[in-house]
């Protein structure tokens, strides 16, 4: 990285002046504590005793047999609260505490980051407010209730598309009114510097574990690592464990929604252009004048118009490749993993599973593929039922 906060030409810090001192404060604190032994020890302790790390690397034996190559699932669905989000929220909440903050605010799409933030806040005795788009609140009702049970205030966002994009805008607006006591716990490897770096570092535990686990299980590195990409935190987390292993194929899977030609998707690398949204310069779905386009995905967690800046660089460098899976493909992968392996993945993660199924001809006997199962599918059961025409 030539300039701090930049990934090639991507990243940066495009925010109102009022937020600059706040981001500088977060950056300084992170630099101070990221290598601080007592901070690392405290975080590791929470990850082990509270989050339940390391999460398993599960061989998907039935699917491997069905498709003729070895599939492993990195089980972030087994992390406490049911998704990888908790790795980042414990890290940032501990950081916030060291910064003397007493309150956390966050945005959430699928609700998993909101639940994980509310959980970390409780664990550390902090107050918590979560901003969530009304559309997402409706499709993730259970997670809204979970957040409230954890003592978080959930603020409905009624602006714009009423999804994650507007929840992020609203959380940023709210943050400027309470910088003294509040940390904005950004949920993905996106946003203004230093958030993409902080979130990547806190999620890199996934990649470190997966690398060690696959070496132990197979005695070698995998041929491919596949992960879904919304903002891109679970993907950058697992990729970071293999990024220097040039022979490991890294695949990020975006939300293809109703298909690329329909225009109803969130596949930024397919039809997006370089631009600035929420503080970062990266690939953004926008019209020719720079207005941000509405996105669509069956999974609230991938339903966002921009992608993490480090992914944009990895793509330019050819180090990672980015594809997409449609809603239908993801829904079908959701059901298949349940029926074949007994595991219901989050609809987000189902996109990664769908890619592996769709591209099975790329792999042959003896090949090893790790799919990052970023979260569990419990939260999506209602959505899936609706799509199946089943009432539950």
């Amino acid at each position, binding site marked *: 990285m030539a300039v701090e906060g930049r990934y090639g030409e991507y990243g*940066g*810090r*495009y*925010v*109102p*002046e*009022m937020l*600059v*001192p*706040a981001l500088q404060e977060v950056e300084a604190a992170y630099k101070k504590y990221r290598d601080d032994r007592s901070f690392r020890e405290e975080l590791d302790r929470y990850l082990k005793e509270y989050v339940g790390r390391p999460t398993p690397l599960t061989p998907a034996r039935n699917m491997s047999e069905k498709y003729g190559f070895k599939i492993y699932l990195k089980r972030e669905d087994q992390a406490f609260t049911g998704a990888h989000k908790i790795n980042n929220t414990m890290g940032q909440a501990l950081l916030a505490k060291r910064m003397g903050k007493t309150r956390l605010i966050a945005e959430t799409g699928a609700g998993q980051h909101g639940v994980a933030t509310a959980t970390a806040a409780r664990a550390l005795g902090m107050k918590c407010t979560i901003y969530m788009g009304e559309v997402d609140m409706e499709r993730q009702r259970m997670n809204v209730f979970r957040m409230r049970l954890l003592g978080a205030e959930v603020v409905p966002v009624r*602006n*714009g598309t009423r999804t994650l*994009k*507007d929840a992020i*805008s609203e959380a*940023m*607006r709210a943050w*400027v*009114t309470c*910088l003294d006591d509040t940390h904005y716990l950004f949920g993905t490897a996106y946003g203004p510097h230093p958030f993409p770096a902080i979130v990547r570092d806190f999620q890199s535990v996934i990649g470190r574990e997966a690398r060690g686990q696959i070496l132990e299980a197979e005695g070698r590195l995998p041929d491919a690592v596949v992960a879904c990409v919304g903002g891109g935190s679970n993907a950058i987390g697992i990729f970071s464990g293999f990024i220097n292993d040039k022979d490991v194929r890294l695949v990020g899977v975006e939300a293809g929604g109703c298909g690329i030609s329909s225009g109803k998707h969130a596949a930024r690398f397919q039809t997006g*252009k370089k*631009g*600035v*949204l*929420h*503080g970062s310069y990266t690939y*953004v779905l*926008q019209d*020719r*004048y*720079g*207005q*941000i386009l509405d996105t669509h995905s069956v999974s609230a967690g991938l339903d966002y118009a921009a992608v993490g800046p480090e992914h944009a660089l990895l793509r330019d460098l050819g180090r990672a490749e980015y594809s997409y899976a449609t809603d239908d493909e993801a829904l079908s992968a959701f059901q298949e993993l349940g029926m074949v392996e007994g595991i219901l993945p989050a609809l987000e993660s189902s996109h990664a599973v769908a890619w592996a199924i769709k591209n099975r001809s790329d792999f042959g006997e003896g090949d090893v593929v790790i799919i990052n199962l970023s979260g569990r599918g419990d939260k999506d059961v209602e959505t899936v039922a609706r799509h199946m025409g089943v009432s539950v």
Partner: protein
Amino acid sequence: MRAKGEGALIAYITLGDPSPEESFVLAQSLIDSGSVDVLELGIPFSDPIADGPVIQAAVDRALKAGMNTDIAFDLSRRLKKSIPIVYLTYYNIVLQRGVEKFVGDCADAGVSGIIIADLPFEESRDVRNSCAKYGVDYINIVTPNTPPGRMRIILEGASGFVYVVSNMGVTGARQSLSIGLRDTVSRTIECANGVPVAVGFGISKPAHVSEVIGMGADGAIVGSAIVDMAARKAGVHAILGYVKKLKEGTMPIAPKPGVNVS
């Protein structure tokens, strides 16, 4: 303005709200009113993170009415300008047109300055360079939490005027101005090298206007309150009556105080 013994009233409206043509009429009326000294025109961006609900709603209406940057420049070109016009927008709007083209088009359309709400000093070099090339003022924003050292760096090459954000938050009318504003204004004047200083965010009453002028500011910026009147369909006549009252708040002003305002 100061030589005339009064402060400047800077009025903001969102271009395209509720339709491009209606916003043009309002803009021209404000220019012709004799009460407004600088007109600030917002070019809508779909995700305005520095703005409160009133401006957000105006942006939504404008975009729904088909507003875009091409139309903004067309409207600006058509305005008969007896006062300076400045744009306020967000960086992606500038970026997608091309930084140099955007600034060049400003010069061509008679727009004398630009304010970019989400472009901090560190990321602004390209825009500044283009502004210098085309003779367009790049208007800097400072806030109550901008540290002194940073404020000096930001304002070193200031031109046009300096936009002082009155309080920690987003745009939108408030009942009273923040307690620390006097200090922010005097710190800004100290760093501004004689470039005029105008205060915005939360100003909605003639009393607010005279308060900030009394603090030593050269101007007051009123946005959400005007946009809100337009949204409630108050009519151009009522809006002009309102800005006339606001303008009265700018005069007469006390002699400019020194930097050690107590």
